[in-house]
């Protein structure tokens, strides 16, 4: 008998014992109807966006809420400029750091739902890296020097300030993981009150199973990378981004 069959038959034999103290015979699954929603975020989309910002701030992220796509576009640009300037002044060698050296790892920009952004960013001198294969040593080497990553999300949860990033096709996992700074663009249409709400909607639409499998990798992200391993002292940016900045904009206009 294979190891697999030995283990499974041992478990089956145990479960057939009538006097087994645990688990109880009538162990019903948790149904969709009875499963609780752990946290709540009441109100309309703007109230939820505000709650998202509050929760993300509480875990040391930061957030802007904007009314239009145009404002979001401006905000993305000025945020990147701000980061660039911050870094330059931190290094105190402003002349060595030109805008052209500032590489940004980006998901395909059409996904950000913001028109003409790529063009403007390129004009501003940001070098947008859109890798095709990060197992290729040359491309891998290039992402070592990126200063920021820009992505959008599969979904965002107001009650916890979390967002879900997928990892398939041209959406590099690295964009939200390896740089020091992550700029995450969240249209209101992707914002849900809670994680449970999002899951319920996906389940109801019959898409949940296929979505999870086909994503290969989904990450629920709640704030910047951190650790308390050094005597309980909170330090940021251990492996993932030290800075997570979310730009939420209203694409619904209810």
């Amino acid at each position: 008998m294979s190891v697999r069959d030995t283990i499974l038959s041992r478990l089956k034999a145990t479960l057939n014992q009538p006097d087994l103290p645990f688990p109880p015979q009538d162990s019903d699954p948790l149904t969709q109807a009875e499963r609780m929603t752990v946290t709540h975020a009441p109100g309309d989309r703007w109230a939820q966006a505000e709650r998202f910002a509050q929760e993300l701030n509480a875990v040391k992220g930061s957030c802007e809420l904007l009314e239009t796509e145009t404002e979001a576009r401006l905000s993305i640009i000025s945020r990147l400029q701000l980061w660039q300037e911050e870094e330059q002044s931190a290094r105190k060698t402003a002349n060595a750091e030109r805008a052209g050296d500032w590489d940004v790892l980006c998901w395909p920009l059409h996904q950000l739902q913001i028109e003409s952004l790529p063009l403007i960013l390129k004009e501003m001198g940001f070098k947008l890296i859109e890798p095709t294969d990060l197992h290729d040593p040359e491309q891998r080497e290039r992402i070592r020097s990126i200063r920021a990553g820009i992505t959008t999300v599969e979904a965002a949860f107001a009650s916890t300030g979390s967002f879900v990033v997928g990892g398939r096709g041209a959406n590099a996992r690295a964009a939200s993981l390896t740089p020091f700074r992550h700029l995450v663009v969240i249209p209101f249409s992707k914002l849900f009150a809670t994680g449970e709400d999002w899951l319920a909607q996906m389940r109801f639409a019959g898409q949940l199973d296929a979505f999870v499998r086909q994503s290969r990798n989904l990450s629920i992200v709640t704030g910047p990378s951190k650790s308390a391993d050094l005597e309980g002292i909170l330090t940021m940016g251990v492996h993932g981004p030290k800075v997570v900045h979310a730009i939420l904009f209203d694409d619904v206009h209810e």
Partner: protein
Amino acid sequence: MQVDFHAPYKDRVRQALSDPNLRSAVSRATDRMSDARHTSMDSIEGQKLRTQVRQMKEHVLRNWPEYLEQLETNLTSNGCTVHWAEGIEDAQAIVKDIALQNSAKLIVKSKSMATEEIHLNHAMEEAGLRVVETDLGEYIIQLADEPPSHIVAPVIHKRLEEIAEVFQEKLDMPPTREPTKMTSLARARLRQEFFAATMGISGCNFAIAETGTICIVTNEGNGRMVSSMPRVYVAVMGIEKLVPTVEDAYLQLQALCRSATGQNLTVYCSMTSGPRQEGDVDGPEQVHVVLLDNGRSRMFARGYGEALMCIRCGACLNACPVYQEIGGHAYGSTYNGPIGAVITPALAPEIGQFKELPHATSLCGACREVCPVKIDLPRLLLDLRSDLVQQGVSPKSEAWGIKSYASLMSSRRTYESLGKMASIGSNVYAGLSGGNIKFMPPPLNGWTAYRDFAPFAPKSFRHWWRQRKKLRGQT
């Protein structure tokens, strides 16, 4: 002073107790985590969450083989390779083979209790492979060549100064005690390893049966790195770490994060359903899942299945007065604290191999109160003690002591006259030594070694009661 992991249990405990730095580091950290857990669970319907997670886990274990088969089918159809491991050697050999087949020389690893359980690093290093732990805490103790001392906070026993010393010695860090600088150094060093490694290994916090998805939870992001950057990704999971649906996973995730660190959610929950497909920019080309039994099915058959619901949050460690005093290393096992005291002997081929652990408890019940799955740990500890007695593993003196106690307690006359003798004897002795008894002969010196012994009351309660009745004329 460090705890010698190879010393006998009592010596380890003694060493731990005589290290004031260890005790203050552990109790400060456990208090902090306990407070965070408390606040976090109080801000939601915490009791309901615990009840529901328990219901879900009971259901999983009642239908355990079916869920394992479902997980296997779905992992396979997602393109993952599933391996089954009966014990430590099996599991080590499987992971070693995957590494050798892929000519992996360097392996990056995220924190995992299952791989601690199978001593994976040691086995891989013996095979000439380099394994780098990437969780900051695990990285520190790997550099210091020590095992983890807490399920979620492996370096809880070390103070900042001690960590700085390790970094200075092993990483040539310039002298500093600045946590930000130390973290930056670790980030830079480990980033090189992530980019160079062929293989990543992680544990598995839970696996979703319906979709064939492996979930790992980290705050630092090393779990995402390990499962995304190298070409080969291996997850080693205990066979009990199952949840039926994605919604169940999200429920358990929240119970885990709140109970472990008091966070609403940890920073990253990374869910891997399969290898990279054509057109994907990154992600591993191979995903292997090792389903590890290593005593779990035996523990289930022995009647200790309730402890298999454990989601490894560490809340019981933080709440335990014994753990707070002695820390993790004194237990001398991979899993420590109350849950370790149950599952270490229960998983072992013979429970007698770890006969001291079911006694490393005050049975106060604090662990049961905080467990997110409501595992009745004190009862399981008593069950283990009872099994040890039935198997004749307990010391003879204990059996003799209990027998004498039983015969003494079953005769009122003997009990009362012994009480009277103890009262007279202890009062005379105390009078001679100035009020309290400072020394008693073995085995009673177990008490007086650490504290004085107050003499018995001059009159017993019964004696006093009889006199009182007499005085009131009610005889």
